[in-house]
Every structure is written in structure tokens, then in C-alpha cells.
């Protein structure tokens, strides 16, 4: 009978907390959003299930929990804490991303830069709310609207906030279709939203091959802190565009990225143990996160309007919102907002340019933050 009591003690009944219970509900909400609502399922499902795994009440000492050294989860979590899952995901993303929309109209790249203002304004906000610089930097990257970048930077700068930052970043990325349209409409006139842009010219194969090499050298020279992200992104893209290494690119964008995605999502979710996650800091991070997305969207749209002052061929300022990255959701949002005014205005291909530029922009931003506070 004693044995039985010991066993119960080791299990859920002996270690139950209401915090864990709350987090189990959060996990179920993630699963619901991913499965029933189809919001970013490839991330919300692994993270959601991971939250369940991480909040099972356990006696420590059984080598099961993700924070116990030597446990299986802690070993798989090393890819997050040591920071090598995100670069490998960027490798796969590079091998699946087609930058030609951006190469066809390079001035739209600047919109992807403008939207990164969200990163740095959120940094200021976090400092104002009392976070340390290195924590504020990790929180600011939520404004980059890019999951792997956020996980990579916070694993380096503020590992104790990683769970909250990752969950916040992915939550808002899933909510992009809710957050962006009102901001876009507020900042643009109907006339602006009706602007039609010319289809771009085709892009030569040579340019597509040279781009990852040159863009890598430029970003690595200016912001070497971004090397771990952009080095892998552009490497993956070169594998794809060079055509001669297609089998490597194919594996990078299928089996390889899938394996890392499964492990990253599950362990990031499992790291959101209630005792670490349910803190006042997490609430502040969620507030700052929504600020970050709003500011980033606004900065992109406003910068597009500023560019229009100087340009002959006007840009439809809606596509400035796509600069936040959150590929391809925000580009799709731009298409929809544009189509509400004129169903024959096909903005999505133009919006892809600031969209992918935003990925590069937020990785550079991460490099700057890493160089300063790493």
C-alpha cells in the first residue's frame, strides 16, 4: 500500500497546481486554433501539444521534465537553448523562398526595413516598463514578426523569457489578419488604397543566383550578428537557385525543416512550465507584443506614403503593412484589404516583396541587438 502511495505522490495528484491547470487550457486553446481554425497549424499544433507535455504535474527527480538535466526533453531542448534549431529552419526557409518578387522591384525592399521600427520602439517600451536592456532586446524582436528569429535571439539574450516571447510572437502572428486591417485603413485614404501597381519585369536566373551570395556578404559585413540566421537563409536559397544542388535544397525544405519544426515546436511548448510562464513579466510581454505588431504595421504603411512623395509610379501604401514579415499572412492581408476597395487590384505579388524583405530586415535587427547586448 505504501508503494501505491509513493506512486501517487510521484504523479499528478501529488504535484497538481492551478497554474499547470491554466497552462493545460492554454495548450488546448493553441490546439483548437491550429486544428479547428487552421491558424498556423504547423506551429500551433506542436507548440500546443508541447504546452500540455510541459505542464503535466510531475515530481522532479524522475528525469522527465524539460528542466531536469539528462531527461529526453531537456536533450531535445538543447537545439533551442544552444540556438541551432532556428538557423536550420532558416536553411529550409531559404530553400523554399522565391525572392524573385523582391528582385523584380528592389525599391519595395525599403518597406521591409521601415516595418522593423516595431522592433526598436518595442525595445524602448520594454525599457520603460522596467526590463533590463538584454531582456528588452529579446522582447523587441517580437516586432520582427518572425518565429525562428525571436526564438534564436531570446535564447541568446534572455533564455528565462523564451517561452513567453515565443508564445507571444506566435500568438500575434496567428492574429495578423485581425490586427492589421484596421491599422491599414486608419492610415490610408480610399484613393490610396485604390492605387494600381504595374506588373514587374521578369528576373534573370543569374540575378537569382547572385542575390543570396551578395546579400549575404552585405548583411554579414554590416551586421555580423545576423550571420547565424541570414547565413543559413541565403545558403538555403543558393542551394535552391543554383539548380545544381536541387537534391540538397529539396531535402532542406522537406524532411530536414520538418524534423526541426517538430522538435522546436514541441520543446518550446514544453518549456512553458506554469511556474516560469505565469508571471507578471509574461503579461507585460504580451502587451508589448501587441504594441510591436501595431507599430510595425503602421511604420510600413507610413513609409510607403513617404516614398510616394518622391516616386512617379506610386506604391499602394497597403503593401507597406506586409513589411512586418509574418510571411505570407500579412501579404495576404494586403491583398484582401486592397480587394475590398477594388476586386481587380491584385496586390499580393507586390506585397510579397516587402514581405520577404521583412524577414531579412528582422534578422539584421536581431544581429544588431545581439552585437549590442549578446
Amino acid at each position: 500500500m505504501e508503494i501505491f502511495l509513493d506512486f501517487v505522490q510521484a504523479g499528478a495528484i501529488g504535484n497538481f497546481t492551478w497554474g499547470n491547470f491554466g497552462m493545460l487550457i492554454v495548450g488546448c486553446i493553441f490546439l483548437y486554433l491550429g486544428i479547428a481554425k487552421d491558424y498556423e497549424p504547423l506551429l500551433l499544433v506542436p507548440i500546443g501539444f508541447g504546452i500540455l507535455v510541459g505542464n503535466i504535474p510531475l515530481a522532479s527527480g524522475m528525469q522527465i521534465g524539460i528542466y531536469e538535466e539528462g531527461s529526453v526533453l531537456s536533450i531535445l531542448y538543447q537545439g533551442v537553448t544552444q540556438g541551432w534549431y532556428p538557423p536550420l529552419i532558416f536553411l529550409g526557409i531559404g530553400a523554399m523562398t522565391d525572392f524573385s518578387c523582391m528582385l523584380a522591384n528592389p525599391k519595395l525592399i525599403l518597406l521591409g526595413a521601415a516595418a522593423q521600427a516595431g522592433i526598436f520602439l518595442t525595445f524602448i517600451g520594454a525599457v520603460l516598463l522596467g526590463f533590463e536592456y538584454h531582456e528588452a532586446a529579446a522582447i523587441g524582436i517580437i516586432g520582427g514578426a518572425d518565429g525562428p528569429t525571436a526564438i534564436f535571439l531570446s535564447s541568446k539574450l534572455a533564455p528565462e523569457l523564451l517561452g513567453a516571447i515565443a508564445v507571444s510572437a506566435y500568438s500575434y502572428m496567428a492574429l495578423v489578419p485581425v490586427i492589421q486591417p484596421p491599422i491599414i485603413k486608419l492610415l490610408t485614404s480610399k484613393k490610396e488604397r485604390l492605387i494600381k501597381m504595374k506588373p514587374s519585369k521578369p528576373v534573370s536566373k543569374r540575378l537569382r543566383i547572385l542575390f543570396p551570395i551578395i546579400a549575404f556578404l552585405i548583411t554579414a559585413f554590416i551586421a555580423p550578428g545576423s550571420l547565424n540566421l541570414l547565413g543559413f537563409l541565403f545558403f538555403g536559397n543558393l542551394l535552391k537557385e543554383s539548380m545544381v544542388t536541387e537534391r540538397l535544397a529539396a531535402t532542406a525544405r522537406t524532411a530536414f525543416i520538418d524534423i526541426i519544426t517538430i522538435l522546436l515546436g514541441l520543446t518550446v511548448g514544453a518549456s512553458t512550465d506554469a511556474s516560469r510562464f505565469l508571471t507578471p513579466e509574461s503579461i507585460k510581454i504580451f502587451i508589448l507584443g501587441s504594441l510591436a505588431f501595431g507599430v510595425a504595421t503602421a511604420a510600413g504603411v507610413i513609409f510607403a506614403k513617404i516614398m510616394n512623395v518622391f516616386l512617379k509610379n506610386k506604391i499602394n501604401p497597403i503593401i507597406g503593412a506586409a513589411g512586418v514579415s509574418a510571411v505570407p499572412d500579412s501579404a495576404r492581408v494586403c491583398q484582401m484589404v486592397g480587394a475590398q476597395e477594388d476586386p481587380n487590384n491584385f496586390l499580393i505579388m507586390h506585397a510579397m516583396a516587402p514581405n520577404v524583405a521583412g524577414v531579412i530586415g528582422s534578422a539584421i535587427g536581431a544581429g544588431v541587438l545581439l552585437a549590442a547586448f549578446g
Partner: protein
Amino acid sequence: MSESVKFSLDFAVIGISIVFVSLAIISFAIWLIRKADDGWQLHEANKKEEALEKEQNIDTTTLIIISAAVATMALGRFHIRKVRRLMKGDSQHRPWSVQGRAVLHGSHITGNRKRQR
């Protein structure tokens, strides 16, 4: 009977009981959900009608996006045939998911070649 044999007998009884209880609860939970499912399925039927209307609406958006792709075919890199194939494969889902499926990591595009391997 030695101490250790007594312990192991006790332990075996408790162990097999825990396995049994766990699986019995799972079995019961499944039975419960199956019961509930009948109610849900009725509820679903109503919902489906609503969904159908909604789908119509979203479908239009999708159509626009597809036409956008056609319009920009000038870029020379987008083939409509592939888009259609992608839709058929996932036809049991709402059109939104068709696009959602093309997404990895909430923040990145998936090339058209994704499913060709």
C-alpha cells in the same frame, strides 16, 4: 516467503491495476465522446449550412488571389495548374486552409515546388 518476493507480489498487483485503471478510463472516455458525438453531429449539420455560406464568401477571395497569380504570370514563374492541384489535394478543408497549408513557420512562404519533392 521472503521479503523481496512479498514486495514483488504486492508491486505486481498494484502495477497491473494501474495499467488496468488507466486503460479502463481511456476506454470510458472514448465511450463518452462517442455518445457526445451524436449530439455534436446534429449540431454540426446546422453549422455546416452556415459554413457553406461563409465558404462561398471566402472562395471569392481565393478566386481573386488565384486570378492575381494569373495576372502576374508575366513574371513567368507561376503556373496555374499547380495551384489547382494544391486545392484538389486539400479539398476537404475550407479554402483558407489551402493557403494556410502553404505556410511554414507562420512567417515564411513555401515555394510552389513544395509538394513535388
